[in-house]
């Protein structure tokens, strides 16, 4: 890179009309990237310019002394951005609830020997409460504001679903590791149910879909298993492969179907 000559810099600083526009452009582009030339420019400015810079420096001193120093530097900006953009407050109570339920289920399973694993039974439902409230008018205080942004609707729903999974999946993995259960049997149904809820949501709305899925699973699988005190075939080790296939298919179909769905972007 060639640096502008001192004469050019002086011409630029003093507003010399002899300097033509292309030269000014080149100087401006160069100055933005070159600290040394900025320093040379600082030495070439006019008396008026120096007066302005000095006056503003005094004003800044006054303003900065008058106001409290900016805070909010307890956290780094990136952490606060991650925290606030993805785990928006509204999801937090639901996530806490989900994790608590999982913890209780694990505890019960440990105390109550001979029962089918409760954790395994409720694992498929774990993300659903969070998904149900992800983009709901009543669940989100700032709904009215967010509804007018380009990120409203589907983007918001998928983003928050991802946030829910980012909490629920590690929680499940942790509980699963503690109890020695098959990780695939914990996580695959959970992902499959999330996709199924979104898919069903394109027809009846996400909230109703989630409630429907939770109710059916509880009635058809959880209740009979507890009554009979044995694990359902659906959650036996042989079913693993079927779950894998179901997860892949449901996720793929969900991805294809959800993008044009009005039902998902306009909740009731």
């Amino acid at each position, binding site marked *: 890179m060639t640096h502008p000559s001192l004469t050019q810099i002086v011409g630029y600083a003093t507003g010399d009309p002899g300097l033509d526009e292309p030269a000014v452009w080149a100087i401006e*582009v160069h100055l933005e990237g070159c600290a040394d030339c900025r320093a040379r420019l600082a030495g070439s400015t006019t008396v008026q310019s120096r007066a302005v810079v000095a006056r503003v420096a005094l004003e800044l001193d006054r303003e900065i002394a008058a*106001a*409290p120093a*900016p*805070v*909010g530097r307890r956290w780094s*900006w990136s952490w*606060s*951005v991650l925290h*606030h*953009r993805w785990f*928006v*407050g*509204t999801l937090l109570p639901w996530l806490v609830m989900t994790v608590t339920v999982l913890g209780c289920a694990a505890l019960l399973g440990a105390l109550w020997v001979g029962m089918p694993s409760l954790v395994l039974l409720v694992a498929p439902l774990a993300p659903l409460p969070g998904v149900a409230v992800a983009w709901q008018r009543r669940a*989100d*205080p*700032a*709904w*009215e*504001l*967010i*509804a*007018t*942004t*380009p*990120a*409203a609707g589907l983007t918001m729903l998928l983003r928050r679903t991802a946030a829910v999974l980012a909490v629920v999946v590690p929680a499940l993995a942790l509980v699963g590791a503690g109890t020695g259960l098959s990780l695939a049997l914990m996580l695959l149904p959970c992902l499959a149910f999330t996709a199924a809820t979104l898919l069903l949501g394109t027809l009846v709305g996400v909230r109703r879909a989630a409630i429907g899925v939770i109710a059916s699973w509880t009635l058809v699988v959880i209740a009979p298993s507890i009554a009979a005190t044995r694990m359902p075939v659906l959650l036996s080790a042989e079913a693993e492969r079927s779950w894998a296939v179901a997860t892949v298919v449901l996720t793929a179909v969900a991805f294809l179907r959800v993008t044009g769905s*009005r039902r998902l972007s*306009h909740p009731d």
Partner: protein
Amino acid sequence: MRAVSTAETATTTHPWPIHAEGLQVRAGRHLAVDGLDLALSTGVHGLLGPNGAGKTTLIRALATVLAPAGGRLTLLGQVVDGRCELRPVRRALGYLPQHFGYYPRFTVREFVGYMAWLKEMPKADIPGAVQRAVDRVGLADRADARLKTLSGGMLRRAGIAQAIVNDPRLLLLDEPTVGLDPEQRLDFREMLRDLGTDSCVLVSTHLVEDVVAACTDVVLVNAGRLVWRGTPEVLAAQGDGGHAGDSPAERGYAALLRQHRAEANR
């Protein structure tokens, strides 16, 4: 140096940022906006009308929260119906609802920054834009305070800051001066006039004096329809001593409404 895209230099062909023809909007089952015709250009427009006139419903429809039930609505050249792609319009939109919910644990800076992010502003521009919006509403010294610690007037100003953070072409403010003290209202009017130089600003209010002081144009609605439109000066000239009100503009407002009601009853 910045690359300027061809799309960016395409001539703007729509004459009005807001154009409604026979617009109908439902609030629940009731048609709160019923056959409204309105074309608004750049500038500050004051939306006046009695309670229940459909002001809030109209603003919510313009903010793309409610879909029109009938008629035709065009925002920034884009026809708004149930099916169209609203993203480009929404990027250029600023909206302050009458009652706005917020996340109490967010600071002002985080909240405005979150809204800027949702409005899909370029990532690198967000911190500067947030600071600029916060400065403009006079909240610079409270930028790092949590929203739950703010007074009503400060919250309202935080709400205005999130509305203007993306430099919207279309700015919709529903009762923005509620909770502001007299001095803040003066500052707010000043800012409105600035915003009106290159945006289309629609301010709904029940305070006639705010409209007179800050707006270039008055839009009077009643029962979901446009009643009258004109400049604040002409509004003030409509009334006389026989009408209720403390200022010429308020008397003009009362006179126009009474006249409209008399015509409607006939």
